[in-house]
């Protein structure tokens, strides 16, 4: 199958290309850009005039909910949402039921996601059995089964000796440990930032210190053990400053921010809007501005959707009882573009943070359109506004703080392995 993508604006951050160039796809690979390879005969021509052609997006933080929570979402629904959002590779979280803590489960998941023939799925395995923070998992077995890193999801390890050993063990084999910094005692029962809004609304709080204390612990252990660490979902200006300092000292650390946190603050909770019940909590404008700047200056390496579909009933509750999370796969592109537009950031630099940067962090070969690269391609209209509402979202999770808003950036075609898996 040969596909000729014609007259599009090719933006490939890895190769620093931003130009009107045709893209030629053959046998699932990139066969050439600019000029057709010798003897190329297209089976299909995609007219990309006025559209951006870029590597398929890579999202490092996705909850597929399957197995165990199919009432919230299923592999089928979420992978369809992924390709509708232009996401062709994603890392999924192990906090399913059962937890992804043994190789058989990972193999099963890989097999079942392959069957869908949609996005490529790269599981993050559990760092400890049951994510309980007591016994480390068989990281080599899990890696052989397909895991690309290890994480605790939202379950912090309270026992620092276990954390130390887990990172030491991971460091032995060069595995990356993905940790969201949150000190569980300070965050206990909390649902909102410890600030003005929570004070007014009487919500239980998660102070910034819950992030910075955990971050200090993680960075310190990383430095001692030599573990490769990826810091997940930074939420505070203080956290940003600590990561910046660690990077300046030469620590091998990367980090991400969720697209929600680039745009929202505690004030968006308004009158208890459960769509804004997120983990980590939305913080102040100062924090949000620091996150936006850090993503620009490289302290934060990449943006993720932190896609966490929640069923309707779990949000139809008072704020504190509602389940945390928001759908995100289909919003990653428009929310990243919004950030770039607001900060006057060139498209190429914006797309870096959702293509090659996350691919590099995950250690996967995707995220670019070089010769012979896997033909995972996103073709989108950067000018087209679309309304975020349940009817327009393929994800089974319909809840997002951006519900009702119009955002620019609509995916028109998504290709995975040279196959058109989505078009609109």
């Amino acid at each position, binding site marked *: 199958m040969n596909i000729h993508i014609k007259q599009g604006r090719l933006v490939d951050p890895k190769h620093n290309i931003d130009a009107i160039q045709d893209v030629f796809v053959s046998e699932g690979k990139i066969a050439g850009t600019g000029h057709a390879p010798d003897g190329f005969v297209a089976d299909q021509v995609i007219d990309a005039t006025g559209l951006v052609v870029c590597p398929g997006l890579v999202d490092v933080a996705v909850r597929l909910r399957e197995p165990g929570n199919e009432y919230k979402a299923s592999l089928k629904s979420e992978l369809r949402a992924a390709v509708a959002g232009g996401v062709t590779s994603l890392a999924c979280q192990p906090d399913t039921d059962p937890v992804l803590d043994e190789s058989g489960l990972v193999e099963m998941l890989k097999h079942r996601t392959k069957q869908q023939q949609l996005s490529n799925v790269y599981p993050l395995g559990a760092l400890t059995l049951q994510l309980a923070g007591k016994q480390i998992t068989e990281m080599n077995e899990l890696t052989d089964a397909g895991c690309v890193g290890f994480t605790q999801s939202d379950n912090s390890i309270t026992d620092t000796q276990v954390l130390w050993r887990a990172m030491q063990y991971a460091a032995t084999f060069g595995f990356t440990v993905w940790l969201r910094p949150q000190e569980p005692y300070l965050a206990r029962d909390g649902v909102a930032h*410890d*600030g*003005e809004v*929570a*004070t*007014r*609304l*009487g*919500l*239980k*709080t998660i*102070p910034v210190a819950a992030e910075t204390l955990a971050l200090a612990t993680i960075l310190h252990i990383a430095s001692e053990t030599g573990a490769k660490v990826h810091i997940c979902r930074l939420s505070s200006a203080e956290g940003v400053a600590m990561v910046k300092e660690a990077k300046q000292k030469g620590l091998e650390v990367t980090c991400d921010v969720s697209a929600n946190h680039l745009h929202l603050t505690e004030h968006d909770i*308004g*009158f*208890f809007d459960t769509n804004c019940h997120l983990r980590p909590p939305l913080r102040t404008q100062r924090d949000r501005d620091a996150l936006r700047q850090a993503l620009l200056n490289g302290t934060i390496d990449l943006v993720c959707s932190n896609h966490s579909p929640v069923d309707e*009933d779990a949000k*139809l*509750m*008072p*704020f*504190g*009882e509602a389940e945390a999370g928001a759908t995100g796969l289909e919003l990653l592109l428009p929310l990243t573009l919004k950030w770039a537009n607001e900060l006057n950031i060139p498209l190429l630099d914006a797309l870096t943070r959702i293509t090659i940067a996350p691919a590099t962090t995950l250690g996967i070969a995707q995220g670019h359109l070089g010769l012979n690269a896997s033909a995972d391609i996103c073709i989108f209209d950067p000018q087209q506004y679309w309304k975020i509402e349940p009817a327009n979202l393929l994800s089974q999770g319909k809840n997002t703080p951006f519900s009702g808003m119009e955002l620019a950036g609509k995916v028109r075609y998504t290709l995975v392995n040279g196959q058109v898996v989505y078009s609109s």
Partner: protein
Amino acid sequence: MHNPQLTKEGKLQHLLTTEGLPRAILNQILDTAESFVGVAEREVKKVPLLRGKTVCNIFFENSTRTRTTFEIAAKRLSADVITLNVSTSSQSKGETILDTVNNLTAMHADMFVVRHAESGAAHFIARHVAPHIHVINAGDGRHAHPTQGLLDVFTIRRYKPDMHNLRVAIIGDVLHSRVARSEIHALTTLGVPEVRVIAPKTLLPQHVEKLGVQVYHDMNEGLKDVDVVMMLRLQNERMNGALLPSAQEYFKCYGLTPEKLALAKPDAIVMHPGPMNRGVEIDSVVADGGQSVILPQVTYGIAVRMAVMSILAGNSE
């Protein structure tokens, strides 16, 4: 942002919090309450304003006093009253709040009085009820207890009519107190120039000063020259642990004794939302003393709740 407790015309649709309520509506409630104070002193303690209406008290969290005063208020307005203690019935069977509310709506209730342990529960219910139903928040988590805040303000106004010339001190567990939040918003909206909170740092929320109050940790300083001393209840479970070392030490630092009260203005009034912990936050001598208006607060509570219910009912006509 649209204020969820007002109609498009700016009238009161629900009473969820005192925050953001226009001064005119606060005054309307207080003035209406004045007219109901007399009802209780009549031989026939009833007015027909809510005749044929059904008021439903839904208590997801236990309460005796608030529930009783709402019942009395509704009955004096001639409404039919149903009281549900949901904490002991359907919630334990897995029914959601919305299920409960929808069931009661199907029974043609007109007004819901709601108490729930989670902040925002009343807003949540108000957002999902049929448009003809009025919701009154009878306490949601740490967030708001507007009728209590209003009855406190009503009491103050009765004893100290010049609201623009008052110093009010609120003492105790502000962090967990929906009463304190509702009082602060009502007092500041009505133009009270100085509201103080007095508490150890463990019992104050972050940035409490953004609510428009002055923060004191030393009771001897904070009580100086105040006109109103409002004590807050300290829940038993907060007395020993990480927030406070003991009830004794709390009383030593923040309990209201005659000596401390002497620092306030000589004609200062003493208030407490009840139920009191004598010897923990307040000395019995003070609670039962000449400056205490704690029992009048209870009496006025009924008048204020009648006022709120009658205004809401009037706004649907």
